[in-house]
């Protein structure tokens, strides 16, 4: 089977979102998760710029340049939404009022350390945004990222090589070939893409893997990426 594309990864994460959760979705792949939460769930999506209750993207004729999420996307509001200022928004984040934050990452270490803000692009200034606040203080940090770098190197490591976002914070990792959790002993594999053996998964991972007794196939629907 082919590795999951980003929409299939978003679908898989979406299956673990529970009714009533307050979530924050990081820029890039994670914002796509909200498309795969069941319609009848009351899930509250918070965005760092102060929106509590982000809805789907706005249509062109309904777009309002003041109604944007933290990624500058023009969005709509869900029924029951509120808008607060940045100080209150980060009090919400830093005070532990986010149940789950779903973040992209460059690297995750087997002790839960996260590196997702500085990939050392030459000539570019640093950009941290709200990543450190979310990673340090959300009740749970879930990461979604490709299992390997473009060059094939591991992103799941014994220790991060890139600058850290927060220490010992990641609880779960969803990749294009596996679903893992971070346990006190290290990575525990819950699901593997059919066609990838445990040996192969270990070979593509930079830290020792343990396998859950009920470890199963990682199965998602076929979801085509939109044409570029």
């Amino acid at each position: 089977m082919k590795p999951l594309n980003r929409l299939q990864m978003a679908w898989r994460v979406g299956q673990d979102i529970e009714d009533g959760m307050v979530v924050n979705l990081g820029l890039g792949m994670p914002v796509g998760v909200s498309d795969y939460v069941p319609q009848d769930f009351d899930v509250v999506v918070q965005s760092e710029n102060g929106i509590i209750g982000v809805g789907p993207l706005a249509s062109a004729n309904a777009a309002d340049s003041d109604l944007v999420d933290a990624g500058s996307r023009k969005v709509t509001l869900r029924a029951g939404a509120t808008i607060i200022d940045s100080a209150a928004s980060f009090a919400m984040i830093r005070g532990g009022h986010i149940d789950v934050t779903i973040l992209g990452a460059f690297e995750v270490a087997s002790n839960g350390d996260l590196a997702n803000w500085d990939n050392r692009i030459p000539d570019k200034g640093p950009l941290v945004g709200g990543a450190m606040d979310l990673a340090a203080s959300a009740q749970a940090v879930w990461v979604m990222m490709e299992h390997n770098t473009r060059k094939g190197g591991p992103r799941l490591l014994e220790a991060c090589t890139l600058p850290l976002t927060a220490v010992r914070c990641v609880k779960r990792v969803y990749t294009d070939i596996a679903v893992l959790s971070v346990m006190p002993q290290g990575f525990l594999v819950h699901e593997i893409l059919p066609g990838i053996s445990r040996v192969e998964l270990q070979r593509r991972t930079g830290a020792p893997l343990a396998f859950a007794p009920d470890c199963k196939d990682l199965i998602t629907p076929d979801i085509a990426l939109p044409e570029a």
Partner: protein
Amino acid sequence: MAIEKRRATAAEAVAGIGDGATVMLSGFAGAGFANQLVAALLDLGPRNLTLVVNSATHRLSNTHELIAAGMVRKVICSAARGHDKSALSAFEVLYKEGKIELEVLPQGTFVESIRAAGAGIPAYFTPTAFGTDLAAGKEVRNFDGRDYVLEKSIPGDAALIRADVADRWGNLTFHHAQMNFGPAMATASKLVVAEVRAFSDTPIPPEQVMLSGVFVDRIFVAGA
């Protein structure tokens, strides 16, 4: 004498912001930039400014024009990426050459430090950034088994913020996510100027006021 905070022009609204001032600029993700006030500040031309702005060079703000004009000594922000994705911005050129000082803070620390200044708190502890490069050199203390970083508050000399409607007392409402850093910056700065879409000749009903006029010194009605 009756309070009247309205100023006829953007130039009058920013008058008095001088060399060496710390200037806070609201705005995030395209909403809440006081771009007409920033343009007036560019015309006024004070030097050696410290800008306190979430994004050093957001593509929908004109902050980068202040930087390109050589008016800025230091930027305190959470995002220092370029104005233009393809080319190096004026900010990045100056930063690479060591000609502009940069302090990058996690966005929550950025706004909490501003909020703290507005509430008379000189410094505070937060778990954010513990164990990362952004906590390098900062005091760490353990409370009840968890490590926290000491962060200092950020007071401002002036704040240029964008709001929706103002009345003559300086009371403000905000439209959607335009609010972002405005209220915190207004409490933290000595001179607070609000650029607004519309002016209300009647008082804004108290329960609809989103930022009290006591935190606002001048109003410039800029239109939509």
